[in-house]
């Protein structure tokens, strides 16, 4: 256990704060609509600005154009990022937080050379292609199949809950390439160009009015074999690399934003008055929940440090990342539920039909936090079975 104080620390925070204060877009990030063009344009512009400012890929190794920041610096970055009200990753989340880390670990030199720079500049948008109807978030039940024919893999089947498919250039697609294989064997992880013939995309409207998810259908889609990441039939280990990464520091932005939202809610509760004319913060029921969430934000950050400290001593982040994913999802809901209590009657209103900066919209979106990327129930199963060694359901 060690805390190495750096003289650069305060200076770094100052630099970040200054750059963000000048560059963060004044307009909020547009919602993700049926077509999604506004958000894409907005996020591409912002990512380009980050890139030009030297703030793209802060956690990536420098050899791939990243900044290679230390964990402490990353925390500072996300703290300042949240404080500045900078845009959430949105349609760039998958490319930056899933696809790039996977390619860095498992991609071929050619794949890295082609895709990584395009991700870094925001040119390409990626989506995930793991979940299937009926399989839930359990990769072992994947049935979308790929047949190798010469230099192509012919894909047939469908995926569901694919976020941002309607605006994506590429997809991290996991398919079953060994016919009749069971569970985790015989899967292949492949880069799928979303403009290929045979792909149909059906965006699904979410309860918050945005179109976060899509169904994607594959009808004899021909993907070149060179697009396979890792080896054919070895997709499970590639996917695991992504998921492990996802469960680690990928939650950092969400965490810092939550911590900052709690501070904002404290401010809001001091400012707003209830129908009884008293500031909401004087309602001890509200105040005690704010206290609790303030402490829980701190400990969530500490859990991230703990996970990263463990990772430093091993090649891949352990499954303890599931702790962070579970807590993060449930806390997000707690925070926005409390926001609704503070807002009271104002929570019945939305200023415009869709606005990502609106607390009510964020409240509604928070319902995804315990469902998407593995429900809380699945996460508790993983902790119980893989970490604690409890028996699986027969």
């Amino acid at each position, binding site marked *: 256990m060690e805390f190495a104080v750096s003289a650069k620390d305060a200076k770094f925070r100052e630099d970040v704060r200054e750059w963000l204060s000048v560059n963060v877009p004044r307009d909020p990030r547009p919602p993700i609509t049926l077509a999604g063009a506004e958000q894409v344009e907005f996020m591409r512009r912002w990512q380009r600005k980050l890139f030009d400012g030297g703030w793209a890929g802060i956690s990536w190794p420098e050899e791939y154009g990243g900044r290679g920041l230390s964990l402490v610096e990353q925390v500072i970055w996300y703290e300042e990022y949240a404080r500045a009200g900078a845009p959430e990753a949105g349609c760039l989340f998958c490319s930056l937080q899933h696809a790039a880390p996977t390619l860095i670990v498992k991609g071929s030199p050619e794949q890295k050379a082609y895709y990584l720079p395009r991700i870094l500049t925001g040119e390409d948008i990626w989506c995930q292609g793991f*979940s299937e109807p*009926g399989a*839930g978030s*359990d990769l072992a039940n994947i049935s979308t199949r790929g047949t190798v024919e010469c230099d192509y893999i012919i894909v047939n089947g469908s995926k*569901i*809950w694919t976020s941002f498919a309607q605006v994506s250039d590429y997809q991290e697609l996991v398919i079953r390439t060994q016919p009749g294989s069971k569970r985790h064997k015989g899967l292949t992880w492949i880069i799928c160009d979303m403009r290929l013939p045979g792909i149909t995309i059906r965006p*699904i*409207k*979410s*309860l918050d*009015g945005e179109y*976060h*998810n899509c169904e994607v259908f594959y009808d004899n889609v021909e993907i070149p074999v060179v697009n396979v990441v890792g080896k054919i039939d070895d997709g499970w280990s590639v996917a695991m690399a992504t998921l492990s990464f996802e469960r680690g520091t990928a939650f950092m932005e969400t965490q810092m934003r939550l911590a900052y939202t709690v501070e904002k809610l404290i401010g809001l509760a001091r400012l707003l008055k*209830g*129908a*009884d004319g008293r500031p*909401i913060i004087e*309602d001890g*029921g*509200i105040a005690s929940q704010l206290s609790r969430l303030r402490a829980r934000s701190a400990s969530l950050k500490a859990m991230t440090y703990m996970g990263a400290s463990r990772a430093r001593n091993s090649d891949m982040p352990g499954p303890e990342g599931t702790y962070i994913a579970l807590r993060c999802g449930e806390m997000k809901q707690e925070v926005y539920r409390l926001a*609704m*209590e503070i807002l*009271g*009657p*104002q*929570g*019945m*209103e*939305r*200023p*415009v*039909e869709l606005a990502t900066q609106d607390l*009510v919209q964020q409240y*509604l979106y928070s*319902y*995804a936090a*315990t*469902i*998407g990327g593995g*429900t*809380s*129930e699945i996460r*508790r*199963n993983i902790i119980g079975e893989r970490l604690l060694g409890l028996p699986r*359901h027969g």
Partner: protein
Amino acid sequence: MACRDTGDDQMIDLIPSSEQGAIAEGVADFLREHFPIDRLRHSRGTVDDNWVDLAQLGAFGVSVPEESGGIGLGVVEDVLVFREFGRHLVSPAAIGTRVAAIAAAANGQEALCRDLLKGRRRAGLATPAGSGVQLLEVGTGDLCVAISGEILQVFDTDQLADREELFALDETLTLARGRLGKAPLITVTDRSLVLSVRLLAAAMLCGVLDVTRDMAVDYARTRQQFGVPIGVFQGIKHPCADIALAAEEAWSQVAYASLMLEAELPSAAFDVTAAKFVAGDNALVSARANIQIHGGMGFTDEVDAQLLLKRVHVLHQLFDDPRLVRQSLLELPLEI
């Protein structure tokens, strides 16, 4: 009558009599046919087409005196009917219309009363928010009901000022901001009537809870994962049990409170407040659990779980911030 003085025998019966059951069932039959919940899937603050037919059925006049065109029963029967309204997500303007009709009758405005009962006019609701009020389901030409302490007031559209249209959390309802004028159409001071408004919101919440339970259980029984229905897993089964318990608890308290209110017992204020609190809290927790039980589907607008959640928020906030309702529960007198 649901309340009588027997002199020597005493009882509390929370099961509807066959007459009471028939009234509720009559309304339920009509709603099943004309108000299926999925009518709201892509609706945006539009008035239900069949409002007039529902009115003509007598559904808003259950406790309006017969001489004013109502059925002349009491709040106990109203509660049964409004639970059915809740089950079909009928507009909360049903509450405003019912109470405005009673107020109009009490005030001798018989023509207005009949217009409301026949569905020719509708009354929306005003909830205090910030320095003004939120106008829920107050469309052009609609009346608007506001309550404050034991006073209930009915405003006509031209008595509202500074109106500004809003987008509602529950987008199937219309919402606006505005200010109430100084000269309401009707002012009534009637503690029981004010309490009945809260109780009917609670009754509608019970109806939503019933639908929530049925939807959750139905999904748990039919949706398969890992080769079995997900209801096998305690992570799903136990939340379903909790929703069922929440529905039983809320309805028991609403039914009980309706009897206390009808009998005008001193503890009625506490019982009605507790009913609103328990029904709102249980409905909210259950609506959330139902979304979680539905997994990815629950987050879409393709199943009705989200409609239930949003409606619960609105009914829970109706007239009173639940935060302040909770506080008042500690102060109200309670005989034990």
